[in-house]
């Protein structure tokens, strides 16, 4: 078999596989929200800057959570590209990598700014928001308020 004929057959096989859905490549881009400028985050000074400074410098957070008597402000974003090649036999089931975005903001990487009860920056942490954010603490009883039974 000559080289051109072999290449033609290989192309024909690839074409048939592609048309039947058994071979497929994907290249995907996923973006969620805008990243913070590192200088804006690094410039925050725990014990010095207030909630007003954080909001002015970083804008509105994705999440605000109660943390004891303090507050946690979470900023997250995603900007990634991924590729996937999927081969599938007609009789088998295979899964592929797929980018989806729904109500998944807590899985985003980002920054959490912890604010103390006097509304000053206590500390700043980076990582996956789900790991950094406090677990839900509500419902709680406020002092002087009766919840009844």
């Amino acid at each position, binding site marked *: 078999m000559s080289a051109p004929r072999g290449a033609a057959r290989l192309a024909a096989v690839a074409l048939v596989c592609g048309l039947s859905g058994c071979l*497929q490549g*994907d290249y995907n*881009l996923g973006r969620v929200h*805008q*990243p913070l*400028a590192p200088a804006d985050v690094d410039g925050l000074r725990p014990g010095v800057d207030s909630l007003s400074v954080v909001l002015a410098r*970083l804008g*509105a957070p994705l999440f*605000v959570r109660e943390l004891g008597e303090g*507050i946690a402000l979470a900023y997250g974003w995603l900007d990634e590209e991924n590729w996937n090649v999927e081969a599938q036999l007609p009789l088998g089931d295979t899964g592929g990598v797929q980018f989806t975005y729904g109500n998944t903001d807590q899985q985003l990487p980002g920054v959490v700014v912890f604010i103390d009860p006097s509304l000053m920056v206590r500390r700043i942490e980076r990582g996956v928001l789900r790991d950094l954010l406090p677990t839900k603490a509500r419902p709680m009883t406020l002092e002087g308020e009766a919840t009844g039974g």
Partner: protein
Amino acid sequence: MRSLLAAALLPLLTGCFLDRAALNTPFDPAAVSSLQPNASTADDVTRLLGAPVEVVQLGRRSAWRYEYEITKRAGLFLLLFGTRGSDTQSDRVWVFFDEADNVTHVGATFDASEAEYALPGFSSARSAGAGK
């Protein structure tokens, strides 16, 4: 002749799509900037922005979230290869109140207009903190 026929058929074997989805209704940046800490009240906020999408209790304080989100998706499918892009951006405002429902702080980000129909390799580079 065969090459011409193949070239004519090839575009018929591909597909593409553009999709745009919005969550909530847009709000006016001018209304947000008119909110004054230590002067505006919860009544002023609801009159200007309507009902919030989230209310968070923070001890005796509280915070309200307003958000308008845009997602744009684009896709291109060839014979053996597909490429897709999804870009989600939002206009977002958090208004903080004291226990007397007076506005104490306002944080706003306007990025919804930054959402674009992006495909890998064809999209522009991201700039940090674009819509702050």
